[in-house]
Structures are given as C-alpha cells and as structure tokens.
C-alpha cells in the first residue's frame, strides 16, 4: 500500500501540488434486522477505494475512485490537481495548514469479541428473542430490532511524511415498538431511538445491552402511551434522560462549536453558528455546572479513534469550562486561521469524501447529582422526558425543539402521570444556563450517534456524547 500511496504523492508533487495526502479506506458492515417475528434484512456490505486531496496554487482539489490500481491513482491524482486549479480561479487566500505533521503509527480499536466472529445465526436468535418478548404484549402493531457491526481499515499518507494505519471496529444494536389506536401512533425504543445504541469496540456491547430483558417494558409503555393524556403546556422543571441530554449536547453544543460552521464554510447547507470568534474565552454558554470536552480518546466512544483523517492524533480538548466557552473543534485549515493547531476532529465518511470538522465524542462531564431517580427525588414539581422522537434547530443553532417518546409528571420527588407526545423548546445559551443538576459518573454513558449529517455531498458520521441525566429549570414544554 505504501508504494501505491507514493504514486499519488509523487504524481501530485510533479504536477505542482504544494501538499497532498491519500487515504485508502475499506468499509465492511453486516446488518441484521427483524420485524414482527421475521428477519427483515440480512446483508453484508463492502466498499473500498481511495481519495486524493491536493493543494495547488493555494487551493484545494479532491478526487476519488473505487478502482485501486496504479493507473487509476495517477489519473485521479491528476484530476484532483486539475480541480484545484479550477478552485484557484475563485480564490481568496492560500490555504494554510499550520505546522507540518509527520507521524508513522498504527491504531487498532480494542475489542473483547471480534464483531465479525459472532455468527449471523446467533445474532438472529438475540433479535428474535427480543422480538417475541415485545409482541407478547397485546396491542403491539410493529416490533423491530437490529444489530449492525462494522470494521473500517484506513491508510493515510501525506507529503509531510505521515503514514498511519488504523483498524476501527464498531457495534450497534436496538429495539423499537409501535402501538396504534385512533388517536395516533406511539413508539418506545431501547436503548435509544434512531438506530439504537452504538460503541466502538467488539460484539460484547451487543451482549451488554441484553435486548430481550428490556423488550417487554418498552412494549408495555407504548401501550400505556396510547391512552395517556397529552403532555401539558407550561414553563417547568425538566428532567431529561441521559440519551436525550446526549442529543441536546449534539445539537446545541457540538454543532455550534464546529469552527468551519462559525467561519461560514457550511452556510449554504447546515448553516452557521451563533458562537462567533469574539465570544471565545468569555461567553457564558451555560451554568457553572456545564463542562464540555471533545474527547476522541474516551474508551468505547463512537467518536474514538487513533488519528483523524488529516493524521492528527486523537485528543481531549476542553470546550466549555464552568459554563464559559473556551474553544472550538477544529481541523488543520480552520485552526491555522485563528493561530492554533488542529485538535484532531477532521474526518471523512469513507474514501470518496473529503475530511471536514466532525464531532468526536463531545461530552457533558458528569456532575454530582447521582442517578436519574436521585434527580427526580430532588424535584418537587416538574416533568421527566425520556428518549428522543424528533429534533430540529435553527441554522445558527439557537432555537431548538425536541419531541420525545414519553414523559412523566414529577410531584414531590416521585414519578406520576404518564404523558404522550411530549416536546420542549428553547434557546441554546438560556437552556444551558438553566441546567441545575447533572447526574454523576456512575450514571454517565457515552452514547453513540450513528447518523450525524453534514456537508455536500452529505457525509454521515458516527460520533459520541458522554452524558448523564440532568435537570433544567423553567423550560417551555408542551404536547404535540
């Protein structure tokens, strides 16, 4: 592979590139899904190819191909150079990447059980057992379950002398039920909605989730939701499950902290950010309890790796400390524009996409409020909402609205009435300013989000968020 990498790097330099890198990537995945007692999907997918990125006359060009041969690498590299020359015709300032980086290394995701070592038969058995449990509850219309396992092999080489190999491994799994009556459809999920739970590591994660043990509970709750009253409207103390705190961090901390968004580089699609550069170091993002880190080193995080796709080592970076905004997540180009070094968050969704700033594991650090039940016990009057059903936020990441699967009234420290179709809305800094309790490390989970979208062409990314249950006071809640 090193020889093929050199073909690209040499060709690029001969054709006038001041910088070039090449990534060879092979993605392999297995997906098993069941629905209402039958195996709905069983597939094995593989994609391989390479992408060449060059700087010519100070401008970027990128081209990629699924055909990994010496001749195709030469053709694609020449095409990348041609594209860069076209870029230079609509040009502002030459791209700067900061200090050169030269690293030779190999990283492998630590695993206990190889994700591809567990037979499809055994995976089907786990899912059908959970499916049967879900459908034991009368009135369930649809029961689904899935297990996905992935391996990614990457080689990164650059004209600065880096040559890095990585073998990454992931597993994801979850179950969902739907119940229907004349008032609508109700849904419950475990351990999370929209793709279940995800971690880097081995198949041990799927075993740990123990899907069958949670199947009956979510079915019973879905049935109860059908006849539950609609969530009331008001400004209330809101307690959120840790999987929803994770999504709240994702939408209202992770994305606005991306420096490419702040600089307008994603303006036409995902939008920009309210978190403009003069706010760095002084802006109050949230209450004193709010501490947020980007941490690509946390074990099992879905955004955990050895090196990003520019060859920058995985790092742990403070972003918000005691409620004050401290730093962005960056890549080499954006970091250089504010006089910093990249904190290693540049990743691409496969060989055919350019790397861009992506969340790694953006974690809300644990507090000292104990468990979810401790937080509920500490709340005289409020509402607890569990597991996301819908999300939306404006293009500067201020006004957000989340729909949730279920909510319970909190009275005198106890869970009471169940409500259907709960939702809450707010503005980012005000919301985090109202954070007054965060669960402790024993109840802190690094949730995987396998469907973060950004860029054109759209790049899906697997990211993580450490979060514990938390409470926010005076939040606008309503029933949809």
């Amino acid at each position: 592979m090193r020889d093929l990498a050199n073909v690209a790097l040499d060709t690029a330099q001969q054709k006038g590139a001041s910088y070039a890198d090449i990534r060879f990537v092979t993605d392999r995945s297995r997906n098993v899904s069941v629905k209402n007692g039958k195996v709905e999907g069983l597939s094995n997918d593989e994609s391989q190819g390479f992408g060449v990125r060059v700087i010519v006359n100070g401008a970027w060009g990128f081209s990629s191909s699924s055909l990994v041969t010496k001749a195709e690498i030469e053709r694609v590299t020449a095409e990348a150079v041609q594209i860069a020359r076209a870029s230079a015709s609509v040009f502002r300032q030459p791209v700067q990447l900061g200090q050169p980086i030269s690293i030779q290394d190999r990283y492998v995701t630590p695993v206990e059980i190889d994700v591809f070592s567990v037979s499809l038969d055994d995976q089907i058995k786990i899912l059908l057992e959970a499916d049967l449990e879900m459908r034991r509850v009368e009135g369930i219309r649809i029961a689904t379950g899935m297990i996905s396992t992935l391996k990614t092999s990457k080689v990164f080489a650059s004209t600065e002398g880096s040559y890095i190999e990585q073998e990454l491994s992931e597993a994801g799994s979850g179950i969902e039920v739907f119940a229907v009556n004349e008032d609508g459809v109700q849904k419950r999920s475990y351990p999370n909605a929209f793709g279940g739970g995800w971690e880097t590591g081995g198949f041990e994660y799927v075993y740990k989730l123990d899907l069958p043990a949670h199947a009956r509970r979510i079915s019973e709750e879905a049935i109860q939701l059908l006849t539950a009253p609609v969530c009331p409207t008001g400004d209330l103390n809101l307690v959120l499950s840790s999987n929803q705190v994770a999504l709240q961090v994702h939408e209202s901390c992770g994305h606005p902290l991306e420096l490419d968004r702040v600089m307008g580089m994603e303006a036409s699609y995902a939008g920009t950010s309210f978190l403009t550069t003069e706010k760095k170091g002084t802006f109050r993002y949230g209450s004193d309890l709010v501490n947020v880190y980007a941490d690509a080193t946390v074990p099992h995080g879905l955004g955990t790796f050895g090196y990003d796709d520019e060859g920058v080592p995985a790092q742990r970076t403070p972003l918000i400390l005691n409620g004050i905004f401290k730093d962005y997540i960056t890549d080499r180009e954006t970091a250089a524009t504010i006089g910093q070094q990249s904190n290693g968050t540049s990743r691409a969704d496969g060989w055919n996409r350019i790397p861009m700033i992506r969340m790694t594991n953006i974690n809300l650090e644990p507090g000292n409020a104990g468990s979810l039940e401790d937080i509920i016990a500490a709340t005289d009057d409020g509402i607890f909402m569990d597991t996301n059903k819908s999300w939306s936020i404006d293009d500067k990441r201020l006004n957000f609205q989340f729909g949730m699967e279920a909510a319970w009234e909190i009275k005198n420290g106890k869970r009471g009435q169940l409500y259907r179709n709960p939702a809450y809305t707010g503005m980012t800094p005000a919301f985090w300013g109202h954070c007054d309790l965060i669960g402790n490390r024993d109840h802190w989970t690094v949730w995987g989000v396998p469907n973060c979208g950004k860029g054109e062409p759209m790049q899906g990314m697997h990211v993580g968020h450490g979060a514990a249950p938390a409470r926010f006071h005076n939040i606008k809640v309503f029933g949809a």
Partner: protein
Amino acid sequence: MSEILGRDKVIQLLQDGLDYAKADQTEITFGGTRQSLTRFANNYIHQNVNESNTSIRVRSVFGRKIGAASTNRLDPEAIKDTIKMAEQIARLQVEDPDFISLPGPDSNEGELSFSEPDQATYFSDPQLRADGAGVICRKAIEAGLTAAGAFDSTGTEQAVVNSLGIASYYQGTSSHLNTVVMGEAGSGWGERLSRKVGLIDYKAVADEAVGKALRSQSPIALDPGEYEVILEEYAVAEILNYMSYLGFGALSLQEERSFMQLGRQIMSPLVSIYDDGHNPEGIVSPFDAEGVYRRRVNLIEKGIANAVVYDSYTTNREIGKHNTGHSSGIQGDVGPLPLNMFIEAGNKSKEDMIKSIKRGLWVTRFHYVNPLVPEKAVLTGMTRDGTFLIENGEITRPVKNFRFTQSAVEAFNEVVALSRDRKLLPSFAFGNLVPAMHCRRFTFNSATAF
C-alpha cells in the same frame, strides 16, 4: 470508473453473475456514479471534489428466504464472492411469509432505456462549475454581501437484472446549484435543478439570492402565531418530500402510520399531486430499485387521497394491487417511495397572490424539518433565508425567523391559490416540480433571534 460502461457491458456483467448464481431467484443491481461538486463560501471556492464509484448489490432467494450482499468492486471474482455471500446469508434466513417473488418482466411496460446522457453533465468540467460559483461570488461582493453554495453535476448508470427476466438499464444526469447570500442581518436563497448542467442559469440564481439578501436586512421581530402565508417553491418542496416519506408509500398505509385516508378529501380541491418517473420536466428515472417500470400514480386528485405507491413486496401483501414500480431499495420502515412528484400548477402569479393578502408572511424556505407527529404529518422546522411581512397586498418588511409546528396535510388543505410557475427541486433521490402556495393558515410556535 472514469467512463460510461454502456448497456451491453453492464448487462453482460450482470448476466454472467446470474449464470453463476445458485439460488432459486437472484437479482443483481449495478450502479455507476460520477459526481463532481464545487462548494464555495465567504466568496471563494473552499471545497471541490470528484467521485467515481460503482456498486453491485445482490439479492438471493431460496423459497421465501432472502439474503443480500454488496460490493463496489467490479472484477468477476468480487461479484462471485458477493453472490456467494448473499446466498450464504439467505440460507441463514427464516421464511418471510409476506414474500412471494421477485418481480418478473410482466411488471414492465414501455421502453426502459432513455436517450444518451448529457455528456457535459456526466463529465462535468470543473472550470464550468468554478465559473458559475465565480459569478455568484462576484455579484455578492459587488453588493457588499457574502455568498456560499454548492454546484453539483452527476452522471449515473443504473441496471437491474433478475433471474425471472428483468433486464433494465438507464443512463442519467442531473445538475444542482444552490446559494445562500448573506449580509450582516439577513440572507437570501437561490436554487436550481436540471438534467443538464448547461441549463443551470447561475446568473439568475445569483440575482435572486442577492436581491433577496438585500431585502432581508434588518428584520423586525414578530410574535409567533397563526399567519396567512405564501410558501415559495423551496418551502413547498421541503414539505412535499416529508409527505412522500410519511404517507405516500404503501408500507406506511399498511402499517397504519400514513395520513392518507383513501377516497377522502384531505386537502384543498386545488391540490393535485402525482408521481411520474418518465416526465421529461423532472429528473427522469424510468425504473425502480427492482428494475420495474415506474408507473404514473395520481396520489392526490383535487384534494382527494387517491392512491399510494407500491413495490413488489407491498403489492404482494394486498389483493388486487399492481406494482407501481416505486421500490426505494431501502429496508426498514421506508418501503416504496414516490421520488418524481409533480404538484399541478395553479393560475396565479406570485404578485397576484401577494396582492390578495391583507396581513401575512412570505416564506422562502424551511430549515431542519422533522416530523413531530408522523402519522398526522405534523412537521416542525425553521424559516430561513428570506421571511417577509405582507401588509395590504405588498411585501413591506423582512422579519426574524420563526419555528413552525404544523400538519403538512392541514396546510395543503388551507391552499387557496397556487402559482402558475413551478420550480424543479430535489426530492430524496431525483426531483419534484412544485408551484408556490398560498395557504390561509400556517402555525408558527416560536421565533429565533435573527
């Protein structure tokens, strides 16, 4: 892959695979893509990319057991390995009582090929895209504004063969340009989609976005609430895409999570929506993910829920239904989808629509839309890039952006006028041709700071 392989080579490659296959039924799908995209921001090109990719997907069937596998390698050994993997997986399956068969050639009618693709689009010149981006950036700079956007051109080869005799092949192209032009306090939008890159009028897009950005500066804050609205084509297309996903497919109807109540008046009599993958006003895609000819389906006829779209699987679950050729190829809860939708044009100019409103809002587009109550098509999202107050028949002032939470079906039931001009805009895969809409009521439940 830097060249078009062509019908003969592709079909032969797939037929060789069928000859090798051992399953009771086998389907092999080929996709070849050449996509080029130029992105610009802050008035310069910051990303400029090209991708050449292929895909082979195999579905193997033993009785009622189905397995699937895919690769992006085209060498015969890789294809054989993928067939073997799909067959191995199928043998591990349990029987699916709802599965009857892959579609046969009797599902098809008409000619499943299309004219030669537009070469200028298929092999897009990066300089042409840079020229388009340059025009927009220069116009923004002249107006003291900042432009960002993307200019894409894509060429595809699609083919599906199966052991029952389906052999469908198609070459297609599309090109898409969008831009947001921003000032200190307000922004404007322009967007075009066409089968040919040469038909993308980037000067018109620049004028539209710059003009709207200039009119959007210094917006006033209005209280959220119920407003009479004109939804520009961009906003209509966004809502329509979600309706297709939530309710226009047979699977959502069979699973009782669709808003479609067949035979009932659910929208304004002014609204007629159909899907037609062969209409040259759209982005033509003559067959679906199973190689079946896409039939025209009248989804909504004068406001009445008339029909939903089917693939082979959902067809077999109901008695007396025809496969309409709308397989999305996506597993899970998606099922068949209409991806080439048309909303019938009205007879009003946008100026006439504005004149008829005493107090209301002009909405250019929506951002980050998601379903809040899917079975009722209740959506939420933000306005973006040009929201204006209409007073006494005139657009008077820009307003700060709102969040809407609104049933799309109810909004389409409130339609009192449609524009005679329509825009072709992206669907989830191809394109939808839509007019602007005048709705009597539309609910905005909160506002943002800009």
